[in-house]
């Protein structure tokens, strides 16, 4: 849904990431597209190996070799468009900025300011040799040092590169520290905001002195230091107990509303997704196979994999005799053929599934890439070729749904 009215905080279009390993090219993410309007929560559900984590790390440009982003665009809504247009005109598409067209240092600068991310395992996401307060203050300091809202006349890349090896040497002198007094205050203020009791004392403590839940709160504090437009949460509560999970989900909800952020929530737990998300995308073997709002996915889902996923969860209320199960395992993502990737596990596999199913629109928001959609509702088929779609959008920005 690449709506022209700038309600979308972030639009991902045909994103592809491949890992060039010795055994072959693993296309972990293959043509993923979705958009998240401002202030909404978009959930990505999928099992391990589905590529959900690789997708969000590609958005944040955190993919290390042998992985590489091989295609697609990541368009972000940002007020700094004028600043960027003047220096990188080709990065502008419509009123959003395509991050993949920005140079490496500017792309790195966007992290923490426009988009920030929280991870699954809080203990491994903090450096054990520095206090929690100091690490949060670092995030505050980085934003403060290159704060462009006052749109200083210096070109963008100069302000970004103002911090190099020499400055680091200076800052690591005991007298002078990268983190200023104000940043430390702001960090303590952030700790209080995320509900950590006597934050001044806690800021001086090290990560191993925090409980799992407390440390996750600290990570959220660190993520909102730069008041980002988009917050990505990669399995934020999977490592926590149920009672702590609810606390953290409530906190995420509160922060999201307060800063009017768009959130991309990654989870393998369908309950968490149901609780938090406005729209959901189901990922399987590197593709989004179905996407829509909660009722689309949980009640009238079309794709057999989504059905299988939902029915495989034992329910709390009644005790069914047997769970109905998807047999087989996740396919090996090396040199995938062109057929539907779920074909050998799909109970309703048909002959035409040999060729890649197009994306059908069951309704405005509910998209599914499976021929069954064609069979059941004869919905509007939509298989414009991506190139033409790109051309249409730039020409007159007419509304054109597309993308799997």
């Amino acid at each position: 849904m690449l709506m022209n009215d700038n309600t979308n905080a972030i639009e991902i279009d045909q994103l592809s990431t491949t890992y060039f390993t010795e055994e072959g090219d693993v296309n972990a993410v293959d043509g993923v597209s979705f958009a998240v309007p401002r202030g909404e929560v978009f959930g990505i559900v999928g099992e391990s190996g589905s590529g959900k984590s690789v997708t969000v790390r590609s958005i944040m440009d955190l993919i290390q070799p042998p992985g590489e982003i091989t295609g697609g665009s990541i368009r972000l809504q940002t007020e700094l468009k004028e600043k960027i247009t003047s220096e990188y005109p080709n990065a502008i598409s419509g009123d959003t900025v395509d991050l993949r067209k920005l140079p490496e240092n500017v792309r790195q600068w966007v992290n923490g300011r426009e988009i920030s991310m929280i991870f699954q395992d809080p203990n491994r996401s903090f450096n054990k040799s520095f206090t929690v307060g100091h690490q949060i203050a670092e995030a505050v300091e980085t934003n403060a040092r290159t704060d462009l809202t006052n749109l200083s006349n210096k070109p963008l890349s100069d302000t970004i590169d103002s911090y190099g090896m020499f400055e680091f040497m200076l800052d690591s002198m005991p007298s002078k520290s990268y983190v200023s007094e104000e940043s430390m205050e702001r960090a303590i203020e952030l700790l209080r905001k995320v509900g950590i009791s006597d934050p001044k004392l806690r800021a001086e403590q090290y990560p191993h002195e925090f409980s799992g839940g407390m440390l996750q709160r600290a990570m959220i504090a660190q993520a909102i230091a730069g008041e980002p437009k988009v917050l990505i949460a990669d399995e934020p509560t999977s490592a926590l107990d149920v009672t702590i999970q609810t606390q953290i989900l409530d906190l995420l909800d509160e922060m999201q509303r307060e800063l009017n952020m768009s959130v991309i929530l990654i989870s393998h737990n369908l309950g968490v997704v149901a609780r938090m998300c406005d729209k959901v995308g189901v990922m399987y073997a590197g593709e989004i196979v179905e996407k829509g709002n909660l009722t689309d996915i949980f009640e009238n889902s079309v794709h057999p994999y989504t059905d299988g996923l939902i029915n495989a969860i034992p329910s709390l209320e009644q005790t069914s005799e047997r769970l109905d199960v998807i047999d087989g395992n996740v396919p090996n993502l090396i040199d995938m053929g062109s057929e539907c990737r779920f074909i050998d596990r799909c109970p309703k596999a048909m002959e035409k599934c040999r060729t890649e199913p197009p994306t059908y629109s069951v309704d405005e928001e509910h998209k599914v890439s499976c021929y069954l959609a064609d069979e059941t509702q004869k919905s509007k088929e939509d298989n414009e070729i991506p190139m033409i779609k790109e051309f249409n959008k730039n020409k007159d920005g007419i509304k054109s749904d597309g993308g799997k």
Partner: protein
Amino acid sequence: MSNLSSFLIKRLIHSIIVFWVAVTAIFSLRLFIPGDIATIILPEDASPALRDEVRSDLGLDRPMYEQYIEYVLGLLQGDLGYSYLSRAPVTELMLPRLVPTIELAVAAMIVAIVFAIPFGIISAQKRNSPTDFTVTMGSLAGVSTPNFWLGLMLVLVLGVWFGLFPTSRQPLTFVSAVSILIFDQQVYGLIDWLRHITLPAITLGTYYMALLTRLTRGGMLDELGQLYITAARAKGLPNPIVNYKHALTNTLIPLITIVALNIGGLIAGSIVVEEVFAWPGVGNLFIDSINRQDWPVVQSLLIFVTLGYVGMNTLADILYTFVNPEVSYND
């Protein structure tokens, strides 16, 4: 009793036990020494009566445990016994040679650390690049080169062919070089000291430099793969902070203990290097006393090395607890 102090006391008690066991083992050497001490000292034609007199004089005829207690008590008061040959107290023999050995060891350590850490970092940063390849091959060669042969080759090439460094043997001590600098504002003392110590320091330090480079590179690569580095990048931190402030600190912390553990290797290396450069250190004394079966000196040197090693290790452990916040609280 706070966690930290109980940890320190535990560590001290452990070190004392280890040191005591080592001293006992070194003392028991006395049982295995071939032949009789007196025969070593006196000329062949000495009469048996004279031999007995020497033996009782040295207290060798008393039961073993008495000698042991006397030996240990003597040790505690710093009396290391007398050299069989020169009859002089061992301390007098050892102390003047201590300074050159320590100077050499410290110089070698500095040479190693000054080159190893930067090389390790650069090759970890630019993984699989030409620089990484050269550094890895260089450190492999460094680890595989015997230090005495390296010393000879350095003397041959740098000393003889290029004449950059003196091959003569009388170096000033660092203290005297500095005193010349301070008192009569002459820098020649320091230069002379530097010219003399460079080759031996490089020879002794090379193995260490190669080892430290491999460890720094490995440690750095491990840290860069950790989740907290990805999180730091996700925070938008500039690269120097991510690489040097976060990754490097966690790489250096474990190196402290490894460096301390390898002190033994340094002392062993200095014995060989002192032989090559005829460096008037403890190593030379050790070889002479072995060749001349002067056992009190040998035993004292062994004990001195043990003390140094145990001391360095305890120091490293304590330093480790202060540097690594996780350890000191819940050991």
